[in-house]
Protein backbone atom coordinates (compact mmCIF):
# COMPACT_ATOMS: atom_id res chain seq x y z
CA UNK A 1 0.00 0.00 0.00
CA UNK A 2 2.84 2.36 0.82
CA UNK A 3 3.90 2.31 -2.83
CA UNK A 4 0.61 3.78 -3.92
CA UNK A 5 0.70 7.58 -4.25
CA UNK A 6 -1.36 9.42 -1.68
CA UNK A 7 -3.77 11.01 -4.17
CA UNK A 8 -4.60 7.64 -5.66
CA UNK A 9 -5.24 6.15 -2.21
CA UNK A 10 -7.56 9.00 -1.42
CA UNK A 11 -9.44 8.67 -4.73
CA UNK A 12 -9.92 4.96 -4.14
CA UNK A 13 -10.89 5.18 -0.49
CA UNK A 14 -14.32 3.78 0.17
CA UNK A 15 -15.64 6.85 1.95
CA UNK A 16 -14.67 9.13 -0.92
CA UNK A 17 -16.48 6.82 -3.33
CA UNK A 18 -19.50 6.73 -1.06
CA UNK A 19 -19.56 10.52 -1.08
CA UNK A 20 -19.53 10.47 -4.88
CA UNK A 21 -22.41 8.00 -4.86
CA UNK A 22 -24.35 10.21 -2.46
CA UNK A 23 -23.81 13.19 -4.76
CA UNK A 24 -25.04 11.02 -7.63
CA UNK A 25 -28.29 10.07 -5.77
CA UNK A 26 -28.93 13.68 -4.88
CA UNK A 27 -28.57 14.61 -8.54
CA UNK A 28 -30.90 11.77 -9.61
CA UNK A 29 -33.58 12.93 -7.19
CA UNK A 30 -33.13 16.58 -8.12
CA UNK A 31 -33.20 15.60 -11.78
CA UNK A 32 -36.45 13.67 -11.40
CA UNK A 33 -37.98 16.60 -9.53
CA UNK A 34 -37.00 18.77 -12.46
CA UNK A 35 -38.54 16.32 -14.91
CA UNK A 36 -41.91 16.80 -13.27
CA UNK A 37 -42.38 20.39 -14.49
CA UNK A 38 -42.40 21.67 -18.08
CA UNK A 39 -40.04 24.58 -17.45
CA UNK A 40 -37.49 22.62 -15.45
CA UNK A 41 -37.63 19.32 -17.36
CA UNK A 42 -34.70 19.91 -19.72
CA UNK A 43 -32.43 20.87 -16.87
CA UNK A 44 -33.75 17.97 -14.77
CA UNK A 45 -32.80 15.44 -17.40
CA UNK A 46 -29.31 16.91 -17.70
CA UNK A 47 -28.87 16.95 -13.92
CA UNK A 48 -29.74 13.24 -13.84
CA UNK A 49 -27.26 12.61 -16.66
CA UNK A 50 -24.53 14.39 -14.68
CA UNK A 51 -25.43 12.20 -11.68
CA UNK A 52 -25.04 9.13 -13.87
CA UNK A 53 -21.64 10.29 -15.12
CA UNK A 54 -20.47 10.78 -11.53
CA UNK A 55 -21.74 7.33 -10.52
CA UNK A 56 -19.91 5.70 -13.45
CA UNK A 57 -16.66 7.57 -12.73
CA UNK A 58 -16.87 6.65 -9.04
CA UNK A 59 -17.27 2.99 -9.98
CA UNK A 60 -14.35 3.10 -12.39
CA UNK A 61 -12.16 4.56 -9.63
CA UNK A 62 -13.29 1.86 -7.23
CA UNK A 63 -13.00 -1.23 -9.37
CA UNK A 64 -10.13 -3.63 -9.14
CA UNK A 65 -7.27 -3.53 -11.60
CA UNK A 66 -7.42 -4.99 -15.05
CA UNK A 67 -9.73 -5.54 -17.97
CA UNK A 68 -9.82 -1.88 -18.95
CA UNK A 69 -9.78 -3.03 -22.56
CA UNK A 70 -13.07 -4.88 -22.05
CA UNK A 71 -14.66 -1.87 -20.38
CA UNK A 72 -13.60 0.46 -23.17
CA UNK A 73 -14.82 -2.07 -25.74
CA UNK A 74 -18.23 -2.43 -24.05
CA UNK A 75 -18.78 1.29 -23.61
CA UNK A 76 -17.61 2.04 -27.16
CA UNK A 77 -19.97 -0.59 -28.57
CA UNK A 78 -22.85 0.77 -26.51
CA UNK A 79 -22.18 4.36 -27.49
CA UNK A 80 -21.80 3.42 -31.16
CA UNK A 81 -25.26 1.84 -31.11
CA UNK A 82 -27.05 4.11 -28.63
CA UNK A 83 -26.02 7.57 -29.80
CA UNK A 84 -27.05 7.30 -33.47
CA UNK A 85 -30.22 5.41 -32.51
CA UNK A 86 -31.28 8.17 -30.12
CA UNK A 87 -30.25 10.97 -32.49
CA UNK A 88 -31.95 9.62 -35.59
CA UNK A 89 -35.19 8.20 -34.26
CA UNK A 90 -38.26 10.01 -35.51
CA UNK A 91 -40.53 11.57 -32.92
CA UNK A 92 -43.29 9.14 -33.91
CA UNK A 93 -41.03 6.20 -33.13
CA UNK A 94 -40.15 7.42 -29.62
CA UNK A 95 -42.36 4.91 -27.79
CA UNK A 96 -40.68 1.89 -29.34
CA UNK A 97 -37.26 3.45 -28.84
CA UNK A 98 -38.02 3.79 -25.12
CA UNK A 99 -39.11 0.12 -25.14
CA UNK A 100 -35.86 -0.89 -26.80
CA UNK A 101 -33.65 1.09 -24.39
CA UNK A 102 -35.62 -0.41 -21.52
CA UNK A 103 -35.11 -3.88 -22.95
CA UNK A 104 -31.32 -3.61 -23.16
CA UNK A 105 -31.30 -2.45 -19.53
CA UNK A 106 -33.12 -5.65 -18.56
CA UNK A 107 -30.69 -7.58 -20.76
CA UNK A 108 -27.73 -6.10 -18.89
CA UNK A 109 -29.33 -7.10 -15.57
CA UNK A 110 -29.77 -10.77 -16.41
CA UNK A 111 -26.33 -11.01 -18.06
CA UNK A 112 -24.75 -9.55 -14.91
CA UNK A 113 -26.55 -12.13 -12.74
CA UNK A 114 -25.44 -14.89 -15.09
CA UNK A 115 -21.80 -13.78 -14.90
CA UNK A 116 -22.09 -13.64 -11.09
CA UNK A 117 -23.37 -17.20 -11.11
CA UNK A 118 -20.51 -18.36 -13.32
CA UNK A 119 -17.86 -16.42 -11.43
CA UNK A 120 -18.86 -17.92 -8.07
CA UNK A 121 -19.36 -21.46 -9.42
CA UNK A 122 -23.07 -21.34 -8.80
CA UNK A 123 -23.07 -18.97 -5.81
CA UNK A 124 -20.66 -21.17 -3.84
CA UNK A 125 -19.90 -19.47 -0.54
CA UNK A 126 -22.34 -16.66 -1.24
CA UNK A 127 -24.81 -15.52 1.43
CA UNK A 128 -28.27 -16.86 0.69
CA UNK A 129 -29.86 -13.43 0.52
CA UNK A 130 -27.33 -12.34 -2.11
CA UNK A 131 -28.15 -15.45 -4.14
CA UNK A 132 -31.87 -14.73 -3.87
CA UNK A 133 -31.57 -11.10 -4.99
CA UNK A 134 -29.27 -12.06 -7.83
CA UNK A 135 -31.73 -14.75 -9.00
CA UNK A 136 -34.64 -12.33 -8.70
CA UNK A 137 -32.71 -9.84 -10.86
CA UNK A 138 -31.99 -12.58 -13.42
CA UNK A 139 -35.65 -13.59 -13.75
CA UNK A 140 -37.10 -10.08 -13.81
CA UNK A 141 -34.35 -8.75 -16.09
CA UNK A 142 -34.95 -11.55 -18.56
CA UNK A 143 -38.73 -11.00 -18.55
CA UNK A 144 -38.16 -7.29 -19.07
CA UNK A 145 -35.65 -7.83 -21.88
CA UNK A 146 -37.88 -10.14 -23.90
CA UNK A 147 -41.10 -8.33 -23.07
CA UNK A 148 -39.64 -4.99 -24.15
CA UNK A 149 -38.32 -6.47 -27.38
CA UNK A 150 -41.77 -7.82 -28.20
CA UNK A 151 -43.28 -4.42 -27.37
CA UNK A 152 -40.71 -2.82 -29.68
CA UNK A 153 -41.51 -5.33 -32.42
CA UNK A 154 -45.23 -4.65 -32.13
CA UNK A 155 -44.93 -0.86 -32.15
CA UNK A 156 -42.39 -0.94 -34.97
CA UNK A 157 -44.83 -3.21 -36.83
CA UNK A 158 -42.23 -5.96 -37.23
CA UNK A 159 -44.73 -8.12 -35.35
CA UNK A 160 -48.48 -7.80 -35.83
CA UNK A 161 -49.96 -5.24 -33.42
CA UNK A 162 -52.97 -7.45 -32.79
CA UNK A 163 -52.92 -9.72 -29.75
CA UNK A 164 -51.26 -13.09 -30.39
CA UNK A 165 -52.76 -15.42 -27.86
CA UNK A 166 -53.13 -19.07 -27.02
CA UNK A 167 -56.69 -18.40 -25.92
CA UNK A 168 -57.87 -19.95 -22.70
CA UNK A 169 -54.61 -21.86 -22.28
CA UNK A 170 -52.64 -18.61 -22.15
CA UNK A 171 -53.02 -18.00 -18.43
CA UNK A 172 -52.14 -21.58 -17.62
CA UNK A 173 -49.04 -21.42 -19.82
CA UNK A 174 -47.98 -18.11 -18.25
CA UNK A 175 -48.47 -19.49 -14.76
CA UNK A 176 -46.58 -22.65 -15.64
CA UNK A 177 -43.62 -20.68 -17.03
CA UNK A 178 -43.62 -18.48 -13.94
CA UNK A 179 -43.65 -21.50 -11.63
CA UNK A 180 -40.87 -23.19 -13.62
CA UNK A 181 -38.66 -20.09 -13.49
CA UNK A 182 -39.23 -19.67 -9.74
CA UNK A 183 -38.70 -23.40 -9.13
CA UNK A 184 -35.37 -23.29 -10.97
CA UNK A 185 -34.42 -20.26 -8.87
CA UNK A 186 -35.39 -22.03 -5.65
CA UNK A 187 -33.35 -25.06 -6.70
CA UNK A 188 -30.26 -22.87 -7.16
CA UNK A 189 -30.85 -20.94 -3.94
CA UNK A 190 -31.19 -24.27 -2.14
CA UNK A 191 -27.71 -25.24 -3.26
CA UNK A 192 -27.75 -26.53 -6.82
CA UNK A 193 -24.68 -25.37 -8.75
CA UNK A 194 -25.90 -26.61 -12.11
CA UNK A 195 -25.55 -24.01 -14.83
CA UNK A 196 -28.14 -25.89 -16.86
CA UNK A 197 -30.72 -25.10 -14.18
CA UNK A 198 -29.69 -21.44 -14.31
CA UNK A 199 -29.96 -21.34 -18.10
CA UNK A 200 -33.28 -23.16 -17.87
CA UNK A 201 -34.47 -20.46 -15.49
CA UNK A 202 -33.40 -17.73 -17.91
CA UNK A 203 -35.19 -19.50 -20.77
CA UNK A 204 -38.41 -19.87 -18.77
CA UNK A 205 -38.24 -16.18 -17.86
CA UNK A 206 -37.58 -15.30 -21.51
CA UNK A 207 -40.58 -17.35 -22.65
CA UNK A 208 -42.65 -15.73 -19.92
CA UNK A 209 -41.66 -12.27 -21.16
CA UNK A 210 -42.80 -13.26 -24.65
CA UNK A 211 -45.95 -14.95 -23.41
CA UNK A 212 -46.99 -11.96 -21.31
CA UNK A 213 -46.53 -9.27 -23.95
CA UNK A 214 -47.54 -11.10 -27.16
CA UNK A 215 -51.25 -11.33 -26.21
CA UNK A 216 -51.45 -7.63 -25.35
CA UNK A 217 -53.02 -5.45 -27.99
CA UNK A 218 -51.40 -2.27 -29.22
CA UNK A 219 -53.78 -0.05 -27.25
CA UNK A 220 -52.36 -1.21 -23.93
CA UNK A 221 -48.73 -1.06 -25.02
CA UNK A 222 -47.82 2.25 -23.32
CA UNK A 223 -48.91 0.83 -19.98
CA UNK A 224 -46.92 -2.33 -20.62
CA UNK A 225 -43.75 -0.41 -21.50
CA UNK A 226 -44.11 1.63 -18.35
CA UNK A 227 -44.62 -1.55 -16.32
CA UNK A 228 -41.54 -3.19 -17.85
CA UNK A 229 -39.63 0.02 -17.11
CA UNK A 230 -40.57 -0.35 -13.44
CA UNK A 231 -39.55 -4.04 -13.60
CA UNK A 232 -36.11 -3.19 -14.95
CA UNK A 233 -35.75 -0.62 -12.17
CA UNK A 234 -36.63 -3.23 -9.53
CA UNK A 235 -34.25 -5.77 -11.04
CA UNK A 236 -31.47 -3.14 -11.03
CA UNK A 237 -32.18 -2.50 -7.33
CA UNK A 238 -31.97 -6.26 -6.68
CA UNK A 239 -28.63 -6.37 -8.51
CA UNK A 240 -27.56 -3.53 -6.23
CA UNK A 241 -28.34 -5.56 -3.11
CA UNK A 242 -26.58 -8.60 -4.55
CA UNK A 243 -23.47 -6.51 -5.29
CA UNK A 244 -23.81 -4.36 -2.13
CA UNK A 245 -23.78 -1.22 -4.27
CA UNK A 246 -25.93 1.65 -2.90
CA UNK A 247 -25.97 3.59 -6.18
CA UNK A 248 -27.69 0.69 -7.93
CA UNK A 249 -30.13 0.21 -5.07
CA UNK A 250 -31.19 3.85 -4.91
CA UNK A 251 -31.40 4.52 -8.64
CA UNK A 252 -33.06 1.18 -9.39
CA UNK A 253 -35.62 1.51 -6.62
CA UNK A 254 -36.51 5.11 -7.50
CA UNK A 255 -37.23 3.94 -11.03
CA UNK A 256 -39.13 0.93 -9.72
CA UNK A 257 -41.34 3.11 -7.52
CA UNK A 258 -41.88 5.97 -9.95
CA UNK A 259 -42.41 3.52 -12.81
CA UNK A 260 -45.12 1.75 -10.82
CA UNK A 261 -46.89 5.05 -10.15
CA UNK A 262 -46.64 6.06 -13.78
CA UNK A 263 -48.01 2.68 -14.86
CA UNK A 264 -50.94 3.11 -12.53
CA UNK A 265 -51.63 6.69 -13.73
CA UNK A 266 -51.70 5.48 -17.32
CA UNK A 267 -53.93 2.53 -16.53
CA UNK A 268 -56.35 4.83 -14.68
CA UNK A 269 -56.39 7.24 -17.63
CA UNK A 270 -57.55 4.37 -19.85
CA UNK A 271 -59.88 2.95 -17.24
CA UNK A 272 -58.06 -0.34 -17.51
CA UNK A 273 -56.98 -2.39 -14.55
CA UNK A 274 -53.43 -3.67 -14.59
CA UNK A 275 -54.48 -7.33 -14.07
CA UNK A 276 -56.87 -6.99 -17.02
CA UNK A 277 -54.06 -5.65 -19.18
CA UNK A 278 -51.80 -8.55 -18.20
CA UNK A 279 -54.63 -10.98 -18.93
CA UNK A 280 -54.29 -9.61 -22.45
CA UNK A 281 -56.41 -10.09 -25.52
CA UNK A 282 -57.68 -6.50 -25.46
CA UNK A 283 -58.44 -5.64 -29.06
CA UNK A 284 -58.89 -9.27 -30.05
CA UNK A 285 -62.33 -9.59 -28.49
CA UNK A 286 -63.06 -6.06 -29.60
CA UNK A 287 -62.24 -6.89 -33.19
CA UNK A 288 -64.86 -9.61 -33.21
CA UNK A 289 -67.38 -7.25 -31.76
CA UNK A 290 -66.33 -4.56 -34.21
CA UNK A 291 -66.90 -6.91 -37.10
CA UNK A 292 -70.44 -7.60 -36.04
CA UNK A 293 -70.86 -3.94 -35.10
CA UNK A 294 -70.03 -2.89 -38.64
CA UNK A 295 -73.11 -4.63 -39.93
CA UNK A 296 -75.34 -3.07 -37.29
CA UNK A 297 -74.58 0.45 -38.39
CA UNK A 298 -77.25 1.22 -40.91
CA UNK A 299 -76.33 4.89 -40.63
CA UNK A 300 -74.38 6.42 -43.45
CA UNK A 301 -71.02 8.06 -43.32
CA UNK A 302 -70.89 11.50 -44.88
CA UNK A 303 -67.65 12.46 -46.53
CA UNK A 304 -66.59 16.01 -47.18
CA UNK A 305 -63.94 17.88 -49.16
CA UNK A 306 -61.08 20.09 -48.05
CA UNK A 307 -62.85 23.13 -49.54
CA UNK A 308 -66.05 22.49 -47.58
CA UNK A 309 -64.11 21.85 -44.41
CA UNK A 310 -62.22 25.11 -44.90
CA UNK A 311 -65.45 27.09 -45.21
CA UNK A 312 -66.90 25.43 -42.14
CA UNK A 313 -63.78 26.24 -40.12
CA UNK A 314 -63.47 29.80 -41.43
CA UNK A 315 -66.93 30.75 -40.20
CA UNK A 316 -66.63 29.08 -36.83
CA UNK A 317 -66.05 31.10 -33.69
CA UNK A 318 -64.44 28.31 -31.78
CA UNK A 319 -62.55 25.32 -33.13
CA UNK A 320 -61.12 22.49 -31.06
CA UNK A 321 -58.49 20.29 -32.66
CA UNK A 322 -58.37 16.72 -31.40
CA UNK A 323 -55.08 15.12 -32.45
CA UNK A 324 -54.38 11.40 -32.35
CA UNK A 325 -51.93 8.83 -33.57
CA UNK A 326 -52.89 9.57 -37.18
CA UNK A 327 -51.38 13.03 -36.79
CA UNK A 328 -48.20 11.48 -35.43
CA UNK A 329 -47.73 8.95 -38.23
CA UNK A 330 -48.37 11.55 -40.90
CA UNK A 331 -45.99 14.00 -39.15
CA UNK A 332 -48.78 16.51 -39.58
CA UNK A 333 -48.02 18.67 -36.53
CA UNK A 334 -46.41 21.49 -38.52
CA UNK A 335 -49.25 21.48 -41.04
CA UNK A 336 -51.70 21.63 -38.13
CA UNK A 337 -49.83 24.60 -36.69
CA UNK A 338 -50.08 26.37 -40.07
CA UNK A 339 -53.80 25.71 -40.17
CA UNK A 340 -54.15 27.13 -36.67
CA UNK A 341 -52.28 30.30 -37.66
CA UNK A 342 -54.52 30.72 -40.70
CA UNK A 343 -57.63 30.33 -38.53
CA UNK A 344 -56.32 32.73 -35.88
CA UNK A 345 -55.88 35.36 -38.60
CA UNK A 346 -59.61 35.07 -39.05
CA UNK A 347 -60.28 35.57 -35.35
CA UNK A 348 -61.23 31.95 -34.86
CA UNK A 349 -60.45 30.77 -31.36
CA UNK A 350 -58.43 27.55 -31.61
CA UNK A 351 -57.45 25.15 -28.89
CA UNK A 352 -56.24 21.55 -28.78
CA UNK A 353 -57.94 18.87 -26.71
CA UNK A 354 -55.42 16.28 -25.60
CA UNK A 355 -56.59 12.92 -24.36
CA UNK A 356 -54.20 11.48 -21.78
CA UNK A 357 -53.53 8.43 -23.93
CA UNK A 358 -53.83 9.96 -27.39
CA UNK A 359 -51.14 8.58 -29.64
CA UNK A 360 -49.30 5.68 -28.21
CA UNK A 361 -48.03 7.19 -25.00
CA UNK A 362 -49.24 9.78 -22.54
CA UNK A 363 -47.85 13.12 -23.56
CA UNK A 364 -47.09 11.92 -27.10
CA UNK A 365 -49.28 14.61 -28.67
CA UNK A 366 -47.88 17.34 -26.46
CA UNK A 367 -44.36 16.48 -27.53
CA UNK A 368 -45.28 16.61 -31.22
CA UNK A 369 -47.28 19.83 -30.94
CA UNK A 370 -44.56 21.47 -28.87
CA UNK A 371 -42.16 20.56 -31.67
CA UNK A 372 -44.38 22.51 -34.04
CA UNK A 373 -44.29 25.54 -31.68
CA UNK A 374 -47.90 25.28 -30.59
CA UNK A 375 -48.14 27.45 -27.45
CA UNK A 376 -48.41 25.34 -24.33
CA UNK A 377 -51.52 27.21 -23.12
CA UNK A 378 -53.52 26.17 -26.19
CA UNK A 379 -53.21 22.52 -25.18
CA UNK A 380 -56.12 21.53 -22.96
CA UNK A 381 -56.13 18.34 -20.97
CA UNK A 382 -59.26 16.21 -21.08
CA UNK A 383 -60.95 17.50 -17.91
CA UNK A 384 -60.47 21.04 -19.06
CA UNK A 385 -61.50 20.39 -22.66
CA UNK A 386 -64.69 18.35 -22.17
CA UNK A 387 -66.97 21.07 -20.71
CA UNK A 388 -65.94 23.34 -23.58
CA UNK A 389 -67.18 21.11 -26.41
CA UNK A 390 -70.80 22.21 -26.04
CA UNK A 391 -69.82 25.75 -27.01
CA UNK A 392 -67.52 24.62 -29.79
CA UNK A 393 -68.61 25.15 -33.39
CA UNK A 394 -66.32 22.66 -35.05
CA UNK A 395 -64.27 19.85 -33.58
CA UNK A 396 -61.52 18.85 -35.98
CA UNK A 397 -60.46 15.29 -35.20
CA UNK A 398 -57.09 14.54 -36.78
CA UNK A 399 -56.30 10.84 -36.76
CA UNK A 400 -57.78 10.21 -33.33
CA UNK A 401 -60.23 7.37 -33.00
CA UNK A 402 -60.82 5.36 -29.83
CA UNK A 403 -60.37 8.38 -27.56
CA UNK A 404 -63.42 10.00 -29.18
CA UNK A 405 -65.62 6.91 -29.33
CA UNK A 406 -68.98 7.53 -27.62
CA UNK A 407 -69.29 3.76 -27.12
CA UNK A 408 -67.04 4.24 -24.09
CA UNK A 409 -69.94 6.18 -22.54
CA UNK A 410 -73.00 4.56 -24.10
CA UNK A 411 -72.32 0.90 -24.82
CA UNK A 412 -71.70 -1.21 -21.71
CA UNK A 413 -70.71 -4.21 -23.83
CA UNK A 414 -67.92 -2.32 -25.57
CA UNK A 415 -64.39 -3.30 -24.54
CA UNK A 416 -63.55 0.36 -24.01
CA UNK A 417 -66.70 1.02 -21.94
CA UNK A 418 -65.84 3.28 -19.03
CA UNK A 419 -62.72 4.76 -20.60
CA UNK A 420 -62.91 8.54 -20.29
CA UNK A 421 -63.22 10.10 -23.74
CA UNK A 422 -63.09 13.51 -25.35
CA UNK A 423 -66.75 14.32 -25.83
CA UNK A 424 -66.46 15.76 -29.32
CA UNK A 425 -70.02 14.76 -30.16
CA UNK A 426 -71.17 17.59 -27.85
CA UNK A 427 -69.87 20.15 -30.31
CA UNK A 428 -72.07 21.60 -33.05
CA UNK A 429 -70.29 19.78 -35.81
CA UNK A 430 -67.39 17.40 -36.20
CA UNK A 431 -64.89 16.97 -39.01
CA UNK A 432 -62.85 13.78 -38.86
CA UNK A 433 -59.67 13.47 -40.88
CA UNK A 434 -58.88 9.79 -41.27
CA UNK A 435 -57.18 7.56 -43.77
CA UNK A 436 -60.02 5.06 -44.07
CA UNK A 437 -62.93 3.61 -42.15
CA UNK A 438 -60.64 1.02 -40.56
CA UNK A 439 -61.10 0.71 -36.83
CA UNK A 440 -58.47 2.13 -34.49
CA UNK A 441 -56.04 0.58 -32.08
CA UNK A 442 -58.66 -1.06 -29.92
CA UNK A 443 -60.08 -2.69 -33.06
CA UNK A 444 -63.61 -1.42 -32.58
CA UNK A 445 -66.06 0.57 -34.63
CA UNK A 446 -66.52 4.28 -33.80
CA UNK A 447 -70.16 5.40 -33.60
CA UNK A 448 -69.08 9.00 -33.88
CA UNK A 449 -68.53 8.58 -37.63
CA UNK A 450 -72.17 7.65 -38.18
CA UNK A 451 -73.60 10.65 -36.38
CA UNK A 452 -75.41 13.15 -38.61
CA UNK A 453 -73.26 16.03 -37.38
CA UNK A 454 -70.05 14.27 -38.37
CA UNK A 455 -68.32 14.65 -41.71
CA UNK A 456 -65.37 12.56 -42.76
CA UNK A 457 -62.43 13.89 -44.73
CA UNK A 458 -60.56 10.82 -45.94
CA UNK A 459 -56.85 11.08 -46.54
CA UNK A 460 -53.43 11.36 -45.01
CA UNK A 461 -53.55 13.80 -42.09
CA UNK A 462 -50.74 16.01 -43.37
CA UNK A 463 -52.05 16.25 -46.93
CA UNK A 464 -55.61 16.85 -45.76
CA UNK A 465 -54.65 19.57 -43.29
CA UNK A 466 -52.41 21.30 -45.84
CA UNK A 467 -55.25 21.23 -48.36
CA UNK A 468 -57.61 22.82 -45.88
CA UNK A 469 -55.03 25.51 -45.12
CA UNK A 470 -54.57 26.21 -48.84
CA UNK A 471 -58.34 26.48 -49.32
CA UNK A 472 -58.59 28.80 -46.32
CA UNK A 473 -55.95 31.10 -47.74
CA UNK A 474 -58.02 31.50 -50.90
CA UNK A 475 -61.28 32.32 -49.15
Amino acid sequence: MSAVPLASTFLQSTSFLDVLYIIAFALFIQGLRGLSGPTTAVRGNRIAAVGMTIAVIATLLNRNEGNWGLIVLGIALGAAVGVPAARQVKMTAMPQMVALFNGVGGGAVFLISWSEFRLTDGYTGTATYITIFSLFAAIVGSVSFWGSNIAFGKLQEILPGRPITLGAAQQIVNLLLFILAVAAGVDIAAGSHSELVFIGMLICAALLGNAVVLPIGGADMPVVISMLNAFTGLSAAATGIALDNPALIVAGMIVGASGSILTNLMAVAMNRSIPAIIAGGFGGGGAVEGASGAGEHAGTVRSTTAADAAIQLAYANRVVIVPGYGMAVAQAQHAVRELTKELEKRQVEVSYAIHPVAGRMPGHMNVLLAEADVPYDQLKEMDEANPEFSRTDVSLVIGANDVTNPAAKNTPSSPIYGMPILEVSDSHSVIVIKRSMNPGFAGIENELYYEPKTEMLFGDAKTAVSEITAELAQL
Partner: protein
Amino acid sequence: MILASTLTTNLAILVLAGFIGFVVISKVPNTLHTPLMSGTNAIHGIVLLGGLLIVGLSGNSAFNKVILVIAIAFGTINIVGGFLVTDRMLEMFKSKPERRADGESTAKKDEKP
Protein backbone atom coordinates in the same frame (compact mmCIF):
# COMPACT_ATOMS: atom_id res chain seq x y z
CA MET B 1 -23.62 -10.74 11.94
CA ILE B 2 -21.83 -8.44 9.53
CA LEU B 3 -23.75 -9.87 6.57
CA ALA B 4 -27.09 -9.38 8.25
CA SER B 5 -26.32 -5.76 9.01
CA THR B 6 -25.28 -5.13 5.40
CA LEU B 7 -28.58 -6.61 4.34
CA THR B 8 -30.63 -4.48 6.73
CA THR B 9 -28.76 -1.32 5.74
CA ASN B 10 -29.36 -2.08 2.10
CA LEU B 11 -33.02 -2.89 2.71
CA ALA B 12 -33.40 0.42 4.55
CA ILE B 13 -31.88 2.23 1.57
CA LEU B 14 -34.23 0.28 -0.71
CA VAL B 15 -37.35 1.27 1.24
CA LEU B 16 -36.37 4.92 1.55
CA ALA B 17 -35.52 5.14 -2.16
CA GLY B 18 -38.91 3.62 -2.92
CA PHE B 19 -40.67 6.34 -0.95
CA ILE B 20 -38.61 9.04 -2.64
CA GLY B 21 -39.63 7.58 -6.01
CA PHE B 22 -43.31 7.72 -5.03
CA VAL B 23 -43.14 11.26 -3.65
CA VAL B 24 -41.11 12.79 -6.46
CA ILE B 25 -43.31 11.39 -9.19
CA SER B 26 -46.81 11.68 -7.79
CA LYS B 27 -47.31 15.26 -9.00
CA VAL B 28 -46.43 15.18 -12.67
CA PRO B 29 -48.70 16.65 -15.36
CA ASN B 30 -49.84 14.18 -18.06
CA THR B 31 -47.90 16.17 -20.60
CA LEU B 32 -44.62 15.04 -19.15
CA HIS B 33 -45.41 11.35 -18.75
CA THR B 34 -43.57 10.24 -21.88
CA PRO B 35 -40.38 12.23 -21.20
CA LEU B 36 -40.54 11.13 -17.58
CA MET B 37 -40.84 7.47 -18.52
CA SER B 38 -37.91 7.93 -20.86
CA GLY B 39 -35.89 9.74 -18.20
CA THR B 40 -36.44 7.10 -15.52
CA ASN B 41 -35.67 4.53 -18.20
CA ALA B 42 -32.25 6.12 -18.67
CA ILE B 43 -31.62 6.08 -14.91
CA HIS B 44 -32.01 2.31 -14.59
CA GLY B 45 -29.16 2.06 -17.05
CA ILE B 46 -27.15 2.34 -13.85
CA VAL B 47 -26.93 -1.48 -13.99
CA LEU B 48 -23.88 -0.62 -16.10
CA LEU B 49 -22.09 -0.23 -12.75
CA GLY B 50 -22.77 -3.89 -11.99
CA GLY B 51 -21.05 -4.91 -15.20
CA LEU B 52 -18.09 -2.61 -14.49
CA LEU B 53 -17.67 -4.01 -10.98
CA ILE B 54 -17.80 -7.67 -12.00
CA VAL B 55 -15.56 -7.34 -15.05
CA GLY B 56 -12.87 -6.01 -12.72
CA LEU B 57 -12.90 -9.13 -10.55
CA SER B 58 -10.33 -11.79 -11.26
CA GLY B 59 -11.29 -15.25 -12.48
CA ASN B 60 -13.63 -14.31 -15.31
CA SER B 61 -13.57 -16.98 -18.01
CA ALA B 62 -13.51 -16.00 -21.67
CA PHE B 63 -17.24 -16.67 -21.95
CA ASN B 64 -17.89 -14.50 -18.90
CA LYS B 65 -15.90 -11.70 -20.49
CA VAL B 66 -18.09 -11.90 -23.59
CA ILE B 67 -21.26 -11.76 -21.49
CA LEU B 68 -19.94 -8.84 -19.48
CA VAL B 69 -18.88 -6.84 -22.53
CA ILE B 70 -22.40 -7.31 -23.88
CA ALA B 71 -23.85 -6.30 -20.50
CA ILE B 72 -21.67 -3.17 -20.41
CA ALA B 73 -22.66 -2.33 -23.99
CA PHE B 74 -26.35 -2.83 -23.13
CA GLY B 75 -26.04 -0.66 -20.03
CA THR B 76 -24.30 2.05 -22.04
CA ILE B 77 -27.01 1.97 -24.72
CA ASN B 78 -29.62 2.27 -21.98
CA ILE B 79 -27.94 5.28 -20.38
CA VAL B 80 -26.70 7.19 -23.41
CA GLY B 81 -29.71 6.47 -25.59
CA GLY B 82 -32.14 7.11 -22.75
CA PHE B 83 -30.79 10.50 -21.79
CA LEU B 84 -30.36 11.63 -25.40
CA VAL B 85 -33.89 10.62 -26.39
CA THR B 86 -35.33 12.33 -23.32
CA ASP B 87 -33.33 15.44 -24.11
CA ARG B 88 -34.68 15.46 -27.66
CA MET B 89 -38.24 15.11 -26.40
CA LEU B 90 -37.75 17.89 -23.89
CA GLU B 91 -35.95 20.21 -26.28
CA MET B 92 -39.43 20.90 -27.56
CA PHE B 93 -40.67 22.18 -24.24
CA LYS B 94 -37.97 24.80 -24.11
CA SER B 95 -39.34 28.30 -24.18
CA LYS B 96 -38.53 30.27 -27.27
CA PRO B 97 -39.06 33.86 -26.13
CA GLU B 98 -38.55 35.57 -29.49
CA ARG B 99 -40.89 33.18 -31.25
CA ARG B 100 -44.23 34.82 -30.52
CA ALA B 101 -44.75 37.90 -32.63
CA ASP B 102 -48.52 37.93 -32.16
CA GLY B 103 -48.39 38.65 -28.46
CA GLU B 104 -49.38 35.30 -27.02
CA SER B 105 -47.74 33.89 -23.98
CA THR B 106 -44.83 31.55 -24.39
CA ALA B 107 -44.61 28.13 -22.87
CA LYS B 108 -42.36 29.61 -20.22
CA LYS B 109 -45.14 31.31 -18.31
CA ASP B 110 -47.33 28.29 -17.95
CA GLU B 111 -46.28 26.15 -15.08
CA LYS B 112 -49.59 24.35 -15.19
CA PRO B 113 -51.89 24.25 -18.22
